[in-house]
């Protein structure tokens, strides 16, 4: 092949084909979706990254939490995510509609956070963990984010947000640790993380430890009497 124009044509066609298949077609399928009414009560989904949680998403991005944490739950049969309790169902595109930026993550040095708001809803837990990870997870490899907090002398009854530490990690007498705005936002973001509403493309799989002959899988109807019979 000695012709410049043919070479250019080759480069163009190969790129155009993959651009169509990997960018244009997925764009039409994924980026044109909108909030959807889901479930019995027809709530809009997704609806969790709003307000302070949205600001927290920015703190998450700015500190590069995505380098060690993922936010995606894999289905049964492709890893042990659901068995480990990281979600009751796999995550799908709809779950990330409101995220900016979308931070799926590609390395798990820390647990997956897609449903951490369902698993660990207590803000105080998160504050303590962020300030001193080893106060909550004894052998944690997570760095301490002390600079997201402020040490201040206790005035009056103390701040309602102050971190309630046990001995080893508590500051000296007369001082308390309080979260800064950034920490507050970040924890609001973390406690809003959940992707557990059943969707058409992601029905919730039956619990693996269902016992006996009761509803082990959605398809079984024998043990369930119709409600009208009662």
């Amino acid at each position: 092949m000695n012709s410049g124009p043919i070479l250019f044509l080759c480069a163009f066609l190969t790129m155009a084909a993959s651009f169509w298949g990997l960018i244009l077609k997925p764009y039409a399928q994924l980026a044109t979706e909108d909030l959807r009414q889901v479930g019995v009560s027809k709530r809009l989904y997704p609806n969790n990254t709003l307000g302070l949680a949205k600001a927290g998403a920015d703190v998450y991005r700015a500190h590069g939490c995505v380098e060690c944490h993922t936010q995606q739950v894999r289905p049964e049969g492709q890893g042990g995510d659901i068995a480990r309790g990281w979600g009751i169902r796999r995550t799908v595109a709809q779950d990330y509609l409101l995220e900016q930026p979308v931070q799926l993550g590609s390395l798990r040095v820390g647990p997956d956070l897609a449903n951490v708001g369902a698993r660990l809803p207590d803000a105080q837990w998160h504050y303590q963990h962020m300030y001193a990870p080893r106060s909550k997870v004894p052998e944690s490899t997570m760095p301490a984010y002390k600079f997201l907090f402020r040490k201040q002398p206790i005035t009056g009854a103390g701040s309602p947000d102050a971190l309630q530490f046990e001995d080893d990690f508590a500051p000296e007498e007369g001082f308390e640790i309080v979260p800064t705005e950034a920490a507050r936002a970040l924890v609001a973001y973390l406690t809003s993380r959940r992707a557990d509403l059943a969707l058409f493309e992601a029905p919730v799989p039956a619990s693996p430890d269902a016992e006996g002959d009761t509803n082990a899988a959605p398809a079984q109807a024998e043990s369930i009497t119709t409600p009208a019979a009662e």
Partner: protein
Amino acid sequence: MTDPTQNPPAAASAVSTAAIDASCRWPLMVFFGKGVGWLMIGSLLLLISSIKMHGPGFLGDTAWLGLGRVKPAAMTALAYGFGVQFAFGMLLWMLCRLGRVPLLNAPFLFLAGGAWNIGVFFGWLGILGGASTGHAYMEMPRAAWPFVFVALGLVALWGLLTFHNRSERRLYVSQWYLVAGLFWFVWAVSVAAYLLVFQPVRGVMQAVVAAWFAHDLLHLWLGAVGLAALHYFIPKLLGRPLYSRQLALFGFWTYAFFAPWGGLARLSGGPLPAWMISSGIASNAMMILPLGCIAFNLYKTIEGDLKAARENIIFRFLFCGGVALCAGWLLQILLSFRTVSATTAFTFAPMAVDHLFLLGAFGLVGFGAAYYIMPRVSGIDWPSAKLADLHFLCSVGGLILHVIGLLLAGWVQGARINNPELDFMTAIKSSIPMVGLSTLALLIFLAGQAAFFLNTQKLVCRWWSPVMRECCASVGLCRSGKVEVES
């Protein structure tokens, strides 16, 4: 298609290689010189991020040096500061040499070098300051991109014009990869910057664009330039022709058709419809055909001459780079399949493959190319052969240990995380010793790059001081008047 501004073919015995090399001097000294600087910075930051795995408190007191910032800063320095800059230098030089034309008005390209480095510096600094976009290989914030695009535009324009103005009309294999690669890169990086940084798309499409771009950066740009260099230098150094032009053409076309589709395999297990991920897995597996052809072609070219050629350090770098390319693709194919990725996804293993491509398949080839090109364009020979040997040993040795360490760590990590009986921290802890091997390996790798840096700096200084003296003398700043002319 004769260009009247060019030397008429009949009159000149073509332009001499020395003249071509000299024409490339300024831009290439910037690209390679600065590229080595970024290589040092990136390797150091990568080492720091690896050390943090063992001691989270290491340099952990400020936001600037947090792991979440140091790691993307390291990858940006390595991919954009080192990788793409070296690729620019290699592209321009090979196009000039193969086209038998000098680089015209090259000092303008100096602007490109300046703009690129300023842009990458702003981007890199921005990442450390908390402005990262959050997308792997696309972390540089907005401020960096205008400079980056100015530089890229200039390089692309010069590259295309040089190619168009070539006096040797027959194309060699490398030019296919270089011209196509340049086109692919401009397309990919423009689209990715637009859809991720400037007008972010909605939802999980961002992950699609980011994965597509990461794959294209590694295989359609750096990969293409690396292949161009392998096809250029191996026959040249051996003084033999490439085994088969037809096989090379077949390899190029199949590479061009299959390689662009593999990006979404990076998101295996992720929140994307099955067909998207399967397209990536299938295309990665199909790459066995082009890779097989390319590897066979190069192997047959070398066949029988390996022993003699091994004494040449440039050949050694290129050969190891070629091996890294094959190993990288075999691993990439293996890790694509869902049965394997069920264990290896989100572990250190895919990271190992990425590093093998960036630092091995491209890096080692780039080092070899730099060792060949820099003395010729500057007119200064390498100051120290020992430093070059040290660079080789530490680069190859460090890279092998680093990749093995991460692959082992990833396998253990993945298997244990998938076992719900095991506590999560226990799973991570059991992989840390192997990460330790990788950390040690990065220290060795850094030592090698330091050797390269020293050698390069000496060369650049030796080239620069006479230039400085000449420059000063010509504007009357320096009274000694002694000008050493090097050519």
